[in-house]
């Protein structure tokens, strides 16, 4: 049998095994991996070796078992930070509930005129915490699914947290509700880290995939 016929037979064998791979991978990489397999073949090789077959089947099984469109590390880390932010929101709510009486007494004793403003802020914070928890968890799910709008909403949330933190500092909330202010600062740092991750290059590549290079 001629060398060309041997190579054609070997190629057919490789293509049969590559048919086990997911269609999206084959569209993108079948010709490339086939070229590597043929380059790696020994001179005069006519059949696919047992070890090669096992390796290709193992690779195909791994790719098929891999969750479809598994998000990159940056987005998985961002989602974990968002879950942490939801936990901090819960911590805020608990802190507000536990410290409310002491904050009230402290303000009424030293600066009673300031109490209505602080009380309004505390009520807003207490109402916002459960909403914040739900929003963080919703956004974590959305970014893992590659939803681009979730990045914009996260950016808006960061702006809101920044404005809230600045307002709290301007209102001297640190003097009366230090724990709440610290929690607000932690949330702000978490939101900043989330933004850095979800707008990183790997995350952007996943959310806004570029067309394949022309062949």
């Amino acid at each position, binding site marked *: 049998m001629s060398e060309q016929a041997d190579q054609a037979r070997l190629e057919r064998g490789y293509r049969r095994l590559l048919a086990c791979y997911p269609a999206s991978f084959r569209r993108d990489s079948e010709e490339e*991996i086939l070229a*590597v397999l043929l380059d790696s073949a020994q001179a005069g090789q006519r059949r696919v070796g047992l070890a090669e077959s096992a*390796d290709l*089947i193992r*690779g195909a099984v791994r*790719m098929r078992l891999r969750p479809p469109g598994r998000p990159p590390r940056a987005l998985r880390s961002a989602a974990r930070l968002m879950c942490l932010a939801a936990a901090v929101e819960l911590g805020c709510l608990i802190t507000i509930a536990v410290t409310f009486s002491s904050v009230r007494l402290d303000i009424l004793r030293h600066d009673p005129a300031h109490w209505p403003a602080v009380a309004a802020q505390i009520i807003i914070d207490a109402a916002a915490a459960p909403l914040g928890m739900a929003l963080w968890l919703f956004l974590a799910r959305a970014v893992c699914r590659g939803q681009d709008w979730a990045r914009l909403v996260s950016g808006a949330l960061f702006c809101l947290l920044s404005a809230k933190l600045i307002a709290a500092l301007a209102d001297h909330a640190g003097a009366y509700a230090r724990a709440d202010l610290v929690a607000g600062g932690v949330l702000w740092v978490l939101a900043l880290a989330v933004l850095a991750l979800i707008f990183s290059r790997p995350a952007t590549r996943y959310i806004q995939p570029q067309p394949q290079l022309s*062949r």
Partner: protein
Amino acid sequence: MQEATFLILTALADGSQHGYGIISDVGEISGGRVRLRAGTLYTALDRLRIDGLIEVDREEAVDGRLRRYYRITPDGSRRLATEASRLHANATAALTRLNPAGGAVT
């Protein structure tokens, strides 16, 4: 980080390479101990691309067949450097304990 991943990133650390080049380089780096097969290589390359540790540098047609070159990304370089430092520290600690007097390890 798995050894195959570490070796692939190492192969790409000083320049872009195509699939067959990576297989050859990994064999050389590991002193012939690790012989990557195409299935293992492309499963790893696919994962590394998703994680943003490598990216496609360019494509060429050689003898009518596609040849795609990969390069390491800045994220990939950082991960490789971190892993190399970790392995180096572990190896140093092991050798120090095996040989506290400073003599040759047998």
